[in-house]
């Protein structure tokens, strides 16, 4: 019973027993160590480097496909998703689509038109005035050669405009090369161009 009593008296003096002192010392020690460790970690103690980088975020970039006065009509579908109406693309065909030019050569025909790419900085501030525009095909097309701004398209994105100005509409030249061998039945192009815009 005496063991559980923390404070007793011996010879008239007040005595704190060891069974009480030891747990208090252990608890105090553990609190001290953990407390300092936590403090170091959370308040950025000067002896340890900060884990997070300082960042400055600016601007907002937007993109829209837009009709050009001398370009083929863009079918509706949302400005981030549009379709360029080229009509039937087959050798010997005559373009009945406005602003779509067809040039017939000996072994192939070349269909050309233009569309607009409108880029803006719609946010506050920003340390960029231009953006890189890349493009690629959504699906492989061995029958036709597609070029944007003269750059041959494949499945891997290619830079078509390295410094497209923000706040302006860039005219993009679109070209499809169709070989003689392609019949009118196979001439329907079911593909998409995937555009990527990265601020500079």
């Amino acid at each position, binding site marked *: 019973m005496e063991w559980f009593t923390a404070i007793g008296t011996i010879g008239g003096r007040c005595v704190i027993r060891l069974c009480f002192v030891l747990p208090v010392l252990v608890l105090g020690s553990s609190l001290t160590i953990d407390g300092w460790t936590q403090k170091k970690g959370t308040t950025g103690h000067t002896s340890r480097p900060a884990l997070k980088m300082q960042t400055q975020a600016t601007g907002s970039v937007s993109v829209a496909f837009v009709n050009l006065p001398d370009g083929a009509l863009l079918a509706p579908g949302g400005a981030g998703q549009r379709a360029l109406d080229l009509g039937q693309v087959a050798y010997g065909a005559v373009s009945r689509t406005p602003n779509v030019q067809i040039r017939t050569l000996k072994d192939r025909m070349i269909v050309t038109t233009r569309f607009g790419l409108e880029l803006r900085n719609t946010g506050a501030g920003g340390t960029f005035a231009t953006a*890189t525009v890349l493009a690629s095909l959504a699906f492989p097309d061995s029958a036709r050669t597609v070029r944007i701004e003269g750059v041959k398209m494949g499945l891997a994105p290619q830079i078509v405009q390295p410094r497209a100005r923000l706040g302006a509409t860039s005219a993009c030249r679109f070209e499809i090369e169709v070989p003689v061998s392609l019949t009118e039945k196979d001439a329907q192009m079911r593909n998409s161009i995937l555009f990527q815009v990265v601020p500079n």
Partner: protein
Amino acid sequence: MREMLKQAILKILAAGWMLTSAAAQLAPAPAQEVVPPSISLSPAVIMARGSFGQALTQTLTMSNQTGAEMTFVMEAFDEIVKDGKRVFVPAGELPHSVAATAVFSQKKVFVKAHSSASVDVHLTIPQETSVRAVSAMFRGTDVLPSRNAVGMTASLATLITFNLTPNVALQPETIRVALPTETSNMNIALWIGNTATEPVVPEGLAAVLDSAGKLVGKAAFPSQRLLPGERLEFAADFPDTLKPGDYKVLCSFQYEGKTLTTDTIFTIK
């Protein structure tokens, strides 16, 4: 007494209302700019400072102001300069790739029409790397099924740059002055190369001095970001008309607490 106080309060309120309505009538109506429906990403650029081994987490928000739901897949690319041109390298292909450390809070993002969606990106800088830029991309995956038409799908990326050391240096080339013509202003241009390891966004000014050393005009160069190894032309139009005589053009660029100056002389006949 109470009635007088009430009337005074009413007068003050009335005067306040009149002032407010007068101000509202005088203030010009905000210009209604016609903006086509588009998709937009915020922020466009994140400039991070720190050291190797550190990390950053940033929230990217894609807004869809079109009438259709759009789907995006999150991807990260290391952005480097190779043979003078920017190259976008898929994550993990470069040694010590930063893009390979990218962790997105969600891999696939649906953004409803006239709505927005946010994704957190977490990047950790390796203990050793020469990569100083990453593009975090919302890659559009909706491909329009179309007949006799070519579908077009847009993707947007946020550029994230890292300044990890104090090693910054720019190398200017010769200033070229294109004298004014009847149809064009005088143009001052020079190429500048980033010869060090960190990205910089120099802010430049061209000052034109006459033969007595007096300032006769100045023009600002539009600021451009130079990644390590990149070389770009900085050009500014000088709109003022100069009298015939000898002049000196002094070009000064501020970057990362440093100043780069270079000059040349030219003659207006």
